[in-house]
């Protein structure tokens, strides 16, 4: 009996963390949930509207198209960044005088503030003064990301690859470095080809870090806001308006707190759902493989 009392008292030790988490995460999140079921006219006047905002938000064609654009964008950048990151990591010298400086160089884009990244590319791609824009103009391609949706997308995707491939490179490099030389030696003695070495040694050993890399990039790309906001402002038209930007327009621009809150909850669930699907499928696959 004494023992169980003591055990229960230990929970008090968790209390400070609980308070911090509640204050910083649970309460704000629940406030949003609270807003999402009310129509708020002013500070004192509010009505309970149930799931009306959810129905309205889900039926909003602008949200649907933003969601489709969002999924398209995430899919494109992931499909390019993950393989590209692996290829670069494989090409890096495993150790040597160059390795440290190359890794440092790759880390640079990760250290630049996101709005600066947006600004860099906004200037870089401009047709009148930007290095890329002018260069493309010189070889006969009129590049205008402010007017042509395709150009805007190309610029955004290129920017995201420039910004985030390094993360995959660093993670994959760490994974590759942890492979014991004996595995490569065994493969050489077994007469394995370079492709087989990748397929049967490197890829299985990279599984853990690649899971992390995909998860991080998936979450981040689904939440992308700053860079397109600075670069294209969601335009031309709505062609590069992704979920978070549409949300900001609703919540901050139009001050539609109820619909914006419902949107936030849906957005949160979409990100959570996609990450959960990916993660459980990887874990299940691993469990199935190991049997």
């Amino acid at each position, binding site marked *: 009996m004494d023992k169980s009392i003591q055990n229960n008292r230990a929970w008090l030790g968790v209390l400070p963390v609980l308070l911090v988490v509640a204050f910083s995460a649970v309460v704000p999140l629940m406030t949003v949930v609270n807003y999402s079921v009310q129509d708020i006219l002013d500070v004192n006047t509010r009505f309970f509207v149930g799931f009306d905002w959810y129905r309205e938000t889900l039926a909003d064609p602008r949200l649907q198209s933003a969601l489709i654009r969002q999924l398209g964008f995430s899919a494109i950048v992931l499909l390019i960044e993950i393989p590209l990151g692996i290829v670069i990591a494989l090409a890096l010298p495993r150790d040597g005088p160059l390795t440290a400086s190359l890794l440092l160089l790759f880390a640079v884009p990760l250290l630049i503030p996101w709005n600066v990244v947006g600004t860099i590319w906004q200037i870089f791609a401009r047709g009148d003064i930007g290095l890329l824009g002018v260069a493309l103009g010189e070889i006969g391609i009129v590049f205008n990301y402010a007017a042509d949706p395709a150009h805007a997308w190309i610029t955004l995707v290129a920017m995201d690859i420039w910004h985030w491939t390094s993360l995959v490179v660093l993670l994959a490099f760490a994974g590759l470095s942890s492979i014991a030389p004996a595995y490569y*030696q*065994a493969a*050489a*003695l*077994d*007469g394995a080809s370079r492709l087989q070495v990748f397929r*049967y040694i490197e890829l*299985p050993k990279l599984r853990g870090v690649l899971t992390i890399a995909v998860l991080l990039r998936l979450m981040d790309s689904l939440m992308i806001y700053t860079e397109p906001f600075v670069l294209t402002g969601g335009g031309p038209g709505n062609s590069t308006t992704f979920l978070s930007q549409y949300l900001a327009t609703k919540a901050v621009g139009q001050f539609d707190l109820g619909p914006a809150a419902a949107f936030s909850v849906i957005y949160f669930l979409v990100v959570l759902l996609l990450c959960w699907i990916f993660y459980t499928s990887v874990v299940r696959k691993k469990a199935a*493989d190991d*049997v």
Partner: protein
Amino acid sequence: MAEIVLENVSYTYPGESAPTLAGLNLTIEHGRAHALLGASGAGKTTMLNLLSGLLHPSSGRILFDGVDVSLLDARARDVALVFQFPVLYESLSVIENLVFPLMNRGWQRTDAVSRAVEISTELGIEGIHDAKPAVLSLFQKQLVAIGKSLMRDDVDLVLLDEPLTAVEPSIKWRLRQTLTRLQQSHGLTMVYVTHDQTEALTFAEEVSVMARGTILQTGKPVDIFQSPNCRFVGHFIGSPGMQFVDCDVADRTARLTGHNSDEVAVALDLPNGHYQLGARVEWVRVRREPGSWQVQGSTILGTEVGEARVLLTLTMGDQKLQAQATGKWSVGDNVNVIFDRFILFDDEKAVVNG
């Protein structure tokens, strides 16, 4: 399988001034189990990498059946290697791991699979063909790794780099027996690297003792034990190792250094001078008669026909010797010592085997 010859092989790691291996000469006959025995840092693994083709000698030649393979890399040599820890393809099942080296060399799948069944039956792992390495015990994984090294029937040489390090002591002997059986039944030329002398001396038909980048002595286990060619080998092999006492040779007669001592050997063909006499504990006989040695202590080892068998520690001046004897001995007894067998060492090398 092939006869392996090393001719004056040296290896220096890039960027280092001193060679890791210097002037190695060794012949391993076809179908022999050969052990490379040495402490860590002796150059065993470097030697193994030279044999497998993962490294190439800085000078000297390596011959497989008379063919110079010094500059061939691992892929081009017909060598199999078992590492200290099991190295398997984790995403492939056991059977796929086993057939992997064969498929890469253009075997028919049915032939490769039947070979895998044959080998895994001998190793007792035929029941886990479809399992992935992740679910196997360390012991099973190492068995699979050994099986993989035995798959190719055309290898010149099977190399084992301390393959039992990762295996529990209780099953070590089982795996060692299995290895010996396979080596004999397949007539494999095997090189077994280890720092464990029990492993080396029980597994191999021939042992090379390595230290500081050279092979000190190569021979049958019994010869290495009985007739070490230098003090290092004498001390390194056996537990306890060989013990040494100072002795002087004058007029072709050897006497232990110290007052009053009896002659140990006469009619030696040696110049006068200072030598070291090496003897194993079991070569030393103690006599209950007044002599120049004094009993300093005794430890009971067991009993033998009613009498205690003891390990005596004897001293003469600052010289020390251990010997086995029976009966009761008191500290302070003066005794005499006879060497049933001894080896005289000149500085480092053995000069007289008596």
